[in-house]
């Protein structure tokens, strides 16, 4: 089932105002801005191309998942890893923030699954607060978030996945055992995914590849298994052709329009893992 290209019809370029910048533990930051168009049109898994600087260095916008929306407000979760993110996390309330979006294909929610497991690795948490809410509002009774990170401080706070909805279960794992289960979050998948209609994941490529492998051994497999991927992006809206990633079957797909969310089966996992690292920290 080839996913359609994303719908650019909703995308707008909007300049909003930052209303809050919250520093979470471990370096993550949640930025909330008044972006009425984006806030009211973005769906889970979609992203926006952000810019919060003048001049040409950095030159390109940077892509970020829409993490949360509330009325006219829109939130993003990120971390300073390079020049662009450093400028973004340094924003203060009142500063302007330019956002082009929503962009990309979000997670598939039609029909809303009865049981959903979300697998989040590190900053891969970003699209999930919104997904959790939309799943729950769509009638998904059982939402479990498997949340992993290297160490406790790098875990996205469980409460931020739930945002007040206590029916959402969050199960944590850390590589060093400092919080939750010791080990990789993908080791929790086999146990959690039985009888699960849908699995949604975001995180480092090796984690997603391990997830894909784990899902292959699940019987029955989930009806839906989707991952949100990353590629260096020139534009975010399909004209630069820069964001190609390897598709199952030997071709490339554009991360910004066919993705960033892909069916697990449509990704060439060995190809993805073999890519030269463009975004090595």
């Amino acid at each position: 089932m080839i996913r359609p290209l994303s719908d650019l019809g909703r995308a707008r370029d909007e300049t909003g105002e930052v209303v809050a910048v919250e520093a979470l533990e471990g370096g993550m930051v949640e930025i909330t801005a008044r972006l009425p168009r984006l806030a009211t049109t973005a769906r889970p898994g979609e992203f926006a191309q952000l810019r919060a600087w003048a001049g040409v260095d950095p030159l390109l916008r940077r892509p970020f998942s829409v993490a949360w929306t509330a009325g006219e407000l829109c939130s993003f979760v990120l971390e300073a890893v390079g020049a662009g993110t450093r400028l973004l996390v340094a924003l203060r309330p009142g500063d302007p923030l330019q956002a082009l979006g929503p962009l990309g294909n979000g997670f598939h929610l039609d029909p809303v699954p009865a049981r959903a497991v979300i697998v989040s690795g590190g900053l891969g948490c970003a699209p999930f607060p919104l997904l959790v809410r939309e799943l729950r509002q769509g009638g998904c009774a059982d939402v479990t978030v498997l949340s992993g990170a290297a160490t406790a401080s790098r875990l996205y706070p469980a409460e931020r996945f739930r945002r007040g909805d206590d029916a959402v279960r969050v199960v944590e794992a850390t590589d060093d055992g400092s919080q939750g289960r010791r080990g990789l979050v993908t080791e929790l998948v086999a146990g959690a995914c039985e009888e699960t209609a849908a699995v949604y994941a975001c995180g480092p490529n090796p984690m997603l590849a391990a997830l894909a492998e784990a899902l292959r051994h699940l019987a029955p497999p989930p009806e839906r298994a989707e991952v949100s991927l990353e590629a260096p992006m020139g534009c975010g809206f399909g004209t630069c052709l820069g964001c190609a990633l390897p598709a199952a079957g030997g071709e490339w797909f554009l991360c910004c329009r066919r993705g960033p969310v892909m069916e697990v089966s449509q990704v060439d996992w060995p190809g993805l893992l073999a890519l030269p690292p463009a975004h090595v920290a």
Partner: protein
Amino acid sequence: MNFPDLSVDLGRGLILPNPVGLASGTAGYGFELRQLIDLDRLGALFTKGTTLHPREGNPPPRVAEVRGGMLNAIGLHNPGVDHVASTYAPEFSRWSIPVVVNVAGGSVEDYLECLDRLERAEGFAGYELNISCPNIANGLDFGRDPAAAGRLVAAARARTGRHLMVKLSPNVTDIAAVARAVEEAGADSVSAVNTYVGMKIHRGIRAPVLPGRGTGGLSGPVIKPLALAAVAQVRAAVRIPVVGVGGIMDADDALEYLIAGADAIQVGTATFVNPAAALEVLDGLLTAGERAGVSRLEELHHPTPSSSGDGLALSR
């Protein structure tokens, strides 16, 4: 018609409503940008480089940012000429923006076969022969060698009565020589320039960021001083119109190209940063024209009576 009148006659029937085009490879075939901006106000759309057969493009990563610019190694990812002729061209004919199909190939035969297939289609206003794509094997050959470029253009000229623009490579010893050769071979205009060969090194992995040879095409503001020099050199070498391209971010940049001798311009990388960049360039030129009270574009940029002024003054 707008006032001031910004239209530009590039010859052989290609009249742009204004001098602001979208550069090849930065606007696809227009379908995405149509959803984001009012495409029909612009002067021209130069399509993604189109080849005889569909191309998948290069492996990722295909783009990397550098200070003030970006490198790309897309590898002419495109759906092939038949798809463009049969599916896209009919759409183009419904648009009011003139569409110029950018054509690329590995051999003279490739180019000619592309033209032949496109000649049967309607809906577009001319060709831009990309003889300068640095990202495919042999892609530079025509752009590098004035004689080879001339032969290609002469053969192409024989196949079409449509406007034939030739996109020049800046990665050459003497761009003026190539420009003269394609003019003599019958090109109606030239566009200058394509991207510059560049490299980004990743210190962490002690290797280039882009795969393969590690090089890509450099575009964006960083190339403006180089491209302006190239445009001025080409302008001095040929009589046909010159379309300037390279790092144009705003109307001021566009004006500099016009002063350097360009008849029209293309906005490339800026569109990635701001999909409305070309429209803002156009609006900036219109405003500048209105303010200056000129009626024609030329009056905005022709040289002042004396370009030597009052010296290196503490000019306060």
